[in-house]
C-alpha cells in the first residue's frame, strides 16, 4: 500500500485511475441500490454482457467503443424491459438468450477486425490504469446525467421500485419509469466498463449496494453509503493490486466479496439484537 501511495504522487496515470474509480462509484452508488431492491441483478447482467455487441461493432467500424457500448446498453435495456413487461413467458430464458447473443455478436465483430487481438481482455475485465483523460470527462458527464434524473424523480423511482401496483394507482407512469430505470442501469454499466470490465460490472453494481442496504433504512442513505463503500473498495483494491502487479479490477471485486461476507455476518448479529429489543 505504501508503495502505491508513493507512486500515486509520481504518476498521473494512477491519479487518473483513482478519479475514474471514484466517478464509477458515484454511478454504481446511485443505481446499484435500485438494482438490489428491485431484484433485477440478472437483468442488469444481461444488459452488461450484451454491451459487447456494441463495443465489437465500434471496433470493427472504427468509432469510439464507449459510444458503441452506450448505444448497445440502451438498446438492450429497452429490449429486456419490453420483454419483462409485455412478453410474460420465460423472462429469464429470454434475458439469458440476449446475454449470450450480445456477446456472440461482439466476439464475431472483434474476430473480423483485422490485426485486432489485445483489447478484448480490457473490454471483458477492464483496465482502470488505462483510462484516458477525455474518457474521464465522458464518465463525469454520465454521472451528472444520472444524478440529475435520480434527484428530480427520486419519489417516483422509489415508488416504482417499492410497489408497482400502488405507484400505478397513484397515477405514476410505471412503464416509463421502469424503462428509464433500466436505461440508467445501462448507462451505469458503461460507466463501469473501464474500471472492472463488463464481466465484473455486476459485482460492483450490486455488492456496495447490498452492503449499504444492510445498514440503512432509506434508499437515499443506501445510495450515499453505497457510493462511499464503492469508493473505498476501489481505492483499497487499486492500492493493494499495485505492488504485486495484479489486475486491479479482479482485486477490487475480491475485496467487495470479502466485505459483503463480513457485513452480512455483522448485520445478522445486529438484526438479532434489534429484534430482541423490538419484541420486548
Amino acid at each position, binding site marked *: 500500500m505504501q508503495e502505491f501511495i508513493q507512486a500515486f504522487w509520481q504518476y498521473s496515470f494512477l491519479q487518473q485511475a483513482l478519479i475514474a474509480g471514484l466517478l464509477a462509484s458515484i454511478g454504481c452508488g446511485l443505481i446499484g441500490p435500485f438494482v438490489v*431492491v428491485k431484484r433485477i441483478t440478472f437483468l442488469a447482467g444481461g444488459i452488461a454482457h450484451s454491451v459487447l455487441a456494441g463495443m465489437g461493432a465500434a471496433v470493427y467500424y472504427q468509432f469510439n467503443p464507449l459510444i458503441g457500448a452506450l448505444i448497445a446498453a440502451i438498446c438492450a435495456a429497452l429490449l429486456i424491459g419490453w420483454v419483462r413487461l409485455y412478453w410474460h413467458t420465460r423472462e429469464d430464458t429470454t434475458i439469458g438468450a440476449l446475454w449470450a447473443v450480445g456477446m456472440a455478436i461482439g466476439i464475431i465483430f472483434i474476430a473480423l477486425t483485422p490485426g485486432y487481438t489485445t483489447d478484448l481482455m480490457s473490454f471483458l475485465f477492464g483496465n482502470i490504469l488505462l483510462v484516458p483523460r477525455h474518457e474521464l470527462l465522458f464518465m463525469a458527464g454520465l454521472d451528472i446525467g444520472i444524478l440529475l434524473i435520480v434527484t428530480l424523480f427520486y*419519489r417516483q423511482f422509489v415508488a416504482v421500485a417499492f*410497489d408497482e401496483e400502488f405507484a400505478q*394507482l*397513484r397515477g*405514476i407512469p410505471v412503464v416509463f419509469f421502469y424503462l428509464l430505470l433500466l436505461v440508467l442501469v445501462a448507462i451505469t454499466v458503461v460507466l463501469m466498463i473501464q474500471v472492472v470490465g463488463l464481466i465484473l460490472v455486476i459485482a460492483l453494481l450490486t455488492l456496495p449496494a447490498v452492503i449499504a*442496504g444492510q445498514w440503512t433504512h432509506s434508499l437515499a442513505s443506501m445510495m450515499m453509503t453505497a457510493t462511499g463503500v464503492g469508493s473505498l473498495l476501489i481505492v483499497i483494491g487499486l492500492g493493494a493490486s499495485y505492488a504485486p502487479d495484479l489486475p486491479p479490477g479482479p482485486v477490487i471485486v475480491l475485496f467487495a466479496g470479502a466485505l459483503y461476507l463480513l457485513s452480512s455476518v455483522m448485520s445478522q448479529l445486529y438484526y438479532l439484537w434489534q429484534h430482541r429489543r423490538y419484541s420486548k
Partner: protein
Amino acid sequence: MTGATLTLPVIHSNQLGFCYGSTVVLDAVDLTVQRGEFIGIVGPNGGGKSTLLKLMLGLLKPTSGHLTVLGQAPRQVRRQVGYVPQYPGFARDFPITVEDVVLMGRLGIGNIWGRYQPADRHAAQQALVEVEAIELAQRPIGTLSGGQTQRVLLARALVSEPEILLLDEPTANIDQRVEGEIFELLAALNSRLTIVVVSHDIAFISHYVNRVACLNQTLICHRTADINGRMIHTLYGGDVRHIAHRWAS
C-alpha cells in the same frame, strides 16, 4: 356539492363481466354502492372478489358491461380511491421507514419532481395517528407485525384523502383480536368514507357492514339481516349455475 352528485351512486356496475382468456370470472354483475355505505363483498375463493376490486380500480378492463366509479371510468378517478391490498406488494427487506411508505400515498398530489412538501408530511402524520400507528413512524417497514403492516397500508390509502376506500381481505393474515380492532377503525372511518371490503369471513364482517354482497361469478345483494343459512349454503355449497340462472332472470 349539489344534491344530484350526492345522490349519484359512488360505484355502479351494469351487467359487468370479466374473463381471463376463456375462463369466466365475473358474469352479469349489477352492483350499486351509494355514498356513505359500508359494504362487504363475500364469497368463496376464486369467486371473483379481488377481480371486482381490480376492475373498480381500473387495473383491469371489463370484457363486457359497464362500470363507473364516481360517475366516471375507474381509471380517471383512481386518485380519489384508496386501496388496501390483500398482500403487501413489496419486499419486506426494502429499506424504507413507515413514514415514507405512508408518504407514497401523496404521490400524484402537488409537484411532479422534487421532494415531499411539509403539507404531505403533516398529512402522513395525521393518517398514522388516525390508524393508531404513529409510534411506528420511524420503524423500518420490515420490522412490523402483520396487524401493524395492515394499519400502515390503511394509512397509506387514507393519506391521499380518498372518497372511497377499497380493501381486499385486509385481515387475512392477522389474528382475530387485531381483526376486530381494524374493523372498529373502518366503522369509524365510514362516517366520512364509502367503504367496500372484500372478505371470505361472512360471519365476522356482518357485525360491521351495512350490507353484504355475495359474489360467486355473479352477485346477490342482501341487507345484513337477510343473510341466512340457506343463502350461505347455496353460495358456498350449492350449484353455482343454478343460482346464476335464477338471479339473472
